[in-house]
């Protein structure tokens, strides 16, 4: 199921080493990966997954380098780049002055020249100070230069709400960046997603926005042997069916996938068999998988953390209407964050972000197990 990417690999070729060598190369960080490889699935946190992906790609291609605030000496604001400065030196792991506009512009310039920078934003909220370079200098350049200047750059960092960090540290930018032609936008959920998609992003010749999630960094997921291989790569533009079902389709990305899976568990006890789709790729959106799922279940709930208006769910809904309208047995339900800047107080924050119960209620509404919201007004 988790196939190796079919897209072309830009630099070098990757042979498939034996697993023991793979483990050495990953440099486990006080890790839980034993040396002897048994058949039981291993666990890895998202942080370790990202770190290992960065490490492997930097080691495979000398043009790849990392830049951002605190990525070097501090080992990364969230320790994602731990150990990299020590291993690769200050030329390839750059601690930058505080200027998102500055270092994003510089990263884009390096990409124009032919290097493969990875620009880290401490959170994507701060990417606002650099968004001109992301959109006008990175996304549009291959087109405007008619293919003469490609921009193989990755912008990554935590996106969306954390816990108690307030409005300027909690916004989800999936819809903002997915709006722009020329960008690819990815958002992993599990460790395997994180590894495979980050590797794919680094190898991709187009600019990629890689939206992580701070609260997921510490979460552990099982990873298959295939995922631990250094040539592992996930295809960009393919969603994953995390849980198969037949009564209602639930789309989600990043942290909300976990919530959707929990909601599916609750729903199954009430006789509703939900299919959970982990989008993985916001642009390009895997319309084929979503539509196929809705044609099977006839009901759809979209879940996202970001603001509702012009959000990812709105686009998914429109895609279903365009391609599978006759298959819908109920209006599409959209679960999103509250349409307010994120409040700080814990009780208010909880109410501003979707919770598992919200997803359960929406699925029930879609299945006509409760009164639809409009009728209750």
């Amino acid at each position, binding site marked *: 199921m988790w196939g190796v990417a079919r897209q072309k690999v830009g630099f070098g070729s990757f042979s498939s080493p034996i697993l023991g060598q793979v483990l050495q190369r990953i440099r486990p960080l006080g890790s839980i990966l034993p040396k002897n490889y048994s058949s039981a699935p291993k666990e890895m946190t998202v942080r370790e997954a990202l770190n290992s992906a960065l490490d492997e790609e930097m080691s495979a291609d000398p043009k790849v380098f990392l830049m951002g605030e605190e990525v070097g000496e501090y080992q990364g604001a969230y320790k994602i780049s731990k150990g990299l400065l020590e291993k690769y030196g200050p030329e390839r792991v750059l601690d930058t*002055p505080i200027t998102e506009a500055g270092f994003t512009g510089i990263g884009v310039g390096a990409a124009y020249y032919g290097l493969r920078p990875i620009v880290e934003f401490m959170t994507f909220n701060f990417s606002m100070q650099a968004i001109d370079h992301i959109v006008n200098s990175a996304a549009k350049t291959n087109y405007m230069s008619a293919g003469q200047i490609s921009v193989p750059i990755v912008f990554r960092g935590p996106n969306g709400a954390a816990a108690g960090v307030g409005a300027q540290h909690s916004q989800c930018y999936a819809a903002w960046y997915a709006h722009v032609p020329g960008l690819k936008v990815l958002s992993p959920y599990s460790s395997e997603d994180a590894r495979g998609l980050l590797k794919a992003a680094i190898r991709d010749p187009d600019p990629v926005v890689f939206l992580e999630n701070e609260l997921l960094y510490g979460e552990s997921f099982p990873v298959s042997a295939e995922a631990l291989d250094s040539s592992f790569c996930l295809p960009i533009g393919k969603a994953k069916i995390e849980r198969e079902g037949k009564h209602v389709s639930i789309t989600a990305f990043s942290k909300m996938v976990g919530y959707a899976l929990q909601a599916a568990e609750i729903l199954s006890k009430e006789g509703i068999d939900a299919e959970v789709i982990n989008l993985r790729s916001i642009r390009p959106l895997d319309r084929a998988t979503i539509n196929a799922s809705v044609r099977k279940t006839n009901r759809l709930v979209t879940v996202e953390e970001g603001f509702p208006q012009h959000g990812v769910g709105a686009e998914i809904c429109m895609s279903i209407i365009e391609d599978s309208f006759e298959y819908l047995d109920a209006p599409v339900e959209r679960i999103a964050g509250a349409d307010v800047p994120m409040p700080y107080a814990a009780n208010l924050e909880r109410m501003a972000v979707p919770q598992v119960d919200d997803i359960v209620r929406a699925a029930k509404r879609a299945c006509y197990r409760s009164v639809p919201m409009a009728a209750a007004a």
Partner: protein
Amino acid sequence: MSIRHQTKANKEGQGEKPHLDFFLFLPHLLDLFSLLHSTMGLWSVRSRLAHHLGQKMAYLGALQRRSWPLVSFLQLWNPRPSELVGGLSSNPINRCSDRRFASIKAETSAAAMDDRCRYQVMDFPGGKVMFIPEMRFLAESPGERISCYRVLDDDGQTISGSSFQEVSKEIALKMYSDMVTLQIMDTIFYEAQRQGRISFYLTSIGEEAINVASAAALTINDIVFPQYREPGVLLWRGFTLQEFANQCFGNKSDYGKGRQMPIHYGSNRLNYFTVSSPIATQIPHAVGAAYSLKMDKKHACAVTYFGDGGTSEGDFHAALNFAAVMEVPIIFFCRNNGWAISTPTTEQFRSDGAVIRGQAYGLRSIRVDGNDALAVYSAVHAAREMAIRESRPILVEALTYRVGHHSTSDDSTKYRPVDEIEHWRTARDPVSRYRKWIERNGWLCDDAESELRSNVRKELLHAIQVAEKMEKPPLAELFTDVYDQVPSNLHEQERLLRETIKQHNGDYPPEVPV
């Protein structure tokens, strides 16, 4: 290539001025000073040094030869920091690092408090600083503007006392020919826009010397990140008139596949990055490319051009700061032409132009007469040497005047006097000034001049005719290059578009190939 030295420069109202040999000598002096400071007693060295400098700096009027406590020595430098050329402030081990802590009034009351403050040095993050008990603010301006390097006078004569990089006859003539070509190109394309044949154009009138002379001092391996008023650089490197015309007409031979407005030229082959409209975004890009050159250990630098208006953008500040911290080989070339559309420099900044800001970020900088081709050539030549050899950023500010309107969408007579424009177009024209110099050398005669002009004109008119008649890019090019591979949704959209065209053939413009 030799550098010509002459005797003292002679500027009105000034006495002896520091000149090139002093520039080279001073850093070594200060190295010596700092070294001896740490080992021997301070006094003997300082007196010798200060005496030497005293002779040089007599016109400052700040000299107090009675005694040389460290503090008053430092105050010696304060009143006219602008007169001090490169070596002093950029010397990293210069113990007088914080020389700018006094106001202009410092000279008079200096000696009294010196004794108390002697040797009192504080340690802070960033290094040691001298401290003083008197509160003094740095003046908002240094009192006198940074002087401007110039080689040719208004009559095309080399100024006595000037030093400049020699140019061979071949290069000199190519420079002249390209400056003339640029002038003619600007005139004819501007007219073409007025006739409705192209949608937009932007001239570089008045900045021909900046364009061509700076390009001549670079090599083809130096990567250029232009703003938009530097087509002369591309011309120098070999972009043909046909290629310029193709881009302006957006035909199928345009390297940009008709995707951009006119004047957004670009050429990978000639190391000239495609012009991008937002102001100053190219400046940090250039730093990124310079960093890449450094990582690749190439013997080349990045060069980026921008106007006086561009120095207000955040990107300018971030890029200069970064370049200094990362120590990259780059030349920042500011074309200070006095106007940012209708905004004069008095409303753009309150600093002394762009050159003064270089020092704030830790960059070596120079101000040069942008209408003097030889001065621009020499300055860029020297800047390139330093940038590559020492892997450091250099800021060059060229003072000039934007003779043309901002673009074809602008009528500058609405915000500036017509006679001012005419004065700069005629009396201060860089091309005729340079021509006089070439003629003095006996390298050009009148016949060659008019033959050149008519040839260029004929070639350009022909190129425009060809470009105008040529087909536009085919429909498929609407969808390519958004990504490296065309994604499925765009394939789908193209299919739908072609179906629509087939069904409604009459509505589709006939001259655009399907």
